[in-house]
């Protein structure tokens, strides 16, 4: 199919492309500050904190247990994994299924999230679609199939037009995702204008800092700790140390100055 090289009016660039970029950018910044204003402190549960630290300790025992003597390692492994008195065997946490419909705090959080993220996107997307309709904005640099046409070329009913030419609504969505790195430059990491991360969070479900089922975490940690063996790192430390002279470095070659500045 012949590739009609369309020549777009340069006023499109001035009055459509750039305004959409600015609109998206500023809406994002406003969204960030509004989220900060509406932000409520998450109440942290004591047991969760304690459990996460215990799991961390167990993991460190697995990884760095070779630096402590064999008996100490065995003592701690026994503490965690013993069949009757081990921590991972005894601790049974009540799993509270966090039903989003009934849990009030999560409900308000979800509502706030929707309000600040999804609503502006819909409103502005719709306005842009209405205001800048009937013409193509730009051409994406890679070829697209015809299936993309109804999606990317809203309001334009030209059958012969290459699907690479897109309308303003798709340019808007492109911006929403593309300006993410700009936001992290200006607003610092972990900012609320980062929409794609919000959508990612929604997709992974109610995944909080601690998996909702600590019992499962305990069980997997128990299994991992069972199979770990203690290989003492200090077995041959003297031989390794004494294979060569100590390197004292420059500390003896001059007086150490302890000034403030």
């Amino acid at each position, binding site marked *: 199919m012949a590739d009609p090289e369309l020549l777009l009016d340069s006023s499109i660039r001035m009055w459509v492309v750039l305004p959409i970029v600015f609109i998206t950018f500023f809406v994002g910044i406003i969204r960030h500050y509004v989220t900060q204003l509406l932000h409520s402190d998450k109440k*942290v549960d*004591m047991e969760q*904190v*304690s459990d996460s*630290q*215990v799991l*961390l*300790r167990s993991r*460190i*025992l697995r990884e*760095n*247990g070779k*630096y*402590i*003597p064999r008996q*100490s390692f065995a003592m701690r492994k026994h503490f965690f994994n013993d069949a009757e008195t081990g921590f991972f065997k005894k601790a049974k946490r009540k799993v509270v299924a966090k039903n989003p419909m009934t849990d009030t705090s999560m409900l308000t959080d979800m509502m706030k999230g929707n309000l600040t993220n999804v609503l502006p996107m819909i409103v502005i997307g719709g306005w842009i679609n209405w205001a800048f309709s009937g013409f193509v904005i730009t051409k994406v640099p890679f070829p697209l199939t015809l299936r993309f046409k109804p999606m990317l070329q809203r309001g334009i009913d030209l059958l012969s037009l290459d699907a690479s030419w897109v309308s303003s609504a798709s340019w808007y969505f492109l911006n929403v995702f593309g300006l993410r790195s700009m936001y992290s430059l200006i607003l610092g990491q972990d900012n609320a204008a980062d929409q794609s991360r919000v959508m990612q969070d929604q997709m992974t479900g109610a995944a909080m800092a601690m998996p909702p089922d600590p019992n499962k975490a305990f069980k997997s940690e128990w299994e991992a700790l069972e199979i770990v063996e203690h290989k003492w790192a*200090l077995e041959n*430390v*003297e031989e*390794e*140390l*004494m294979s060569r*002279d*100590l*390197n*004292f*470095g420059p*500390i*003896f*070659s001059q007086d150490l100055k302890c*000034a*403030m*500045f």
Partner: protein
Amino acid sequence: MLSNGKKMASVSDMYDVGWEEMRDKLRKWREDNCRNSEQIVDVGDELISEHSSKLGDDVWIIYEQVMIAALDCSRDDLALTCLQELRKQFPDSHRVKRLSGMRLEALERYDEANKHYDAILQDDPTNTAARKRKISILKAQGKSAEAIRELNEYLEQFVGDQEAWHELSELYINEHDYGKAAFCLEELMMTNPHNHLYCEQYAEVKYTQGGLENLELSRKYFAQALRLNNRNMRALFGLYMSASHIAASPKVSAKVKKDNMKYAAWAAAQINRAYKLAGHGTKESKCSMKAVEEMLESMQITMS
């Protein structure tokens, strides 16, 4: 405050530094967690009295840093000024409440301080800072057994708090409960395997506990500390002591004795080398080398 009407030389004059360098120095001390309170007070006092407007939002964290240092140096006036500024800016903050509690502690009004911390804990049961301050009050009052008990309970919930493990090991050492102190140090060694100071402290505790097994462990950990940091002289002396102690013990086999004498000889040679390097260029090096040899001789353990 200043007698004879003489103005003390300001830090910026003495060292010829500007306010930015002073602020950066304070930040470095903050990040390294240094306890050089007198220097912090000197630098910080000048910074907040003369350059507070230029500091912007940094001024609040500097107020906190200077306040704690002022409490350390008994500069109650300066501490109170800093605290009042912070209270004005952050009226409901738990962090500021903890600072007022610390000031009460410094004035030895422990009951009022305890009330402050209890109020914080009622509001936020996971606040670790308030709990740790309560334990410090017990320590300051000399109630070490209670402090140990409270710290153990705290650590049961917050197993990952390394500062607390270290504090507990110190408390146990003071009570001469070396076994439990060793346990705490093992926790620290696991979480910081490359820190030579924890290895060395652990080795010292094991050496103090005594007994052949513990001496072997201490020798190994002194060696590990040396491997992590070749310049740790204390670990070098510890290696020499533990190796010669094992070699001098009557219960060991001939092979163990020979090995340990080899280790001790190596350690002695390294010590000699270190002193030689230190005495480089000075005229008394020959006399000091002899002194080192005599010192090493005298440190030999003679088993009766």
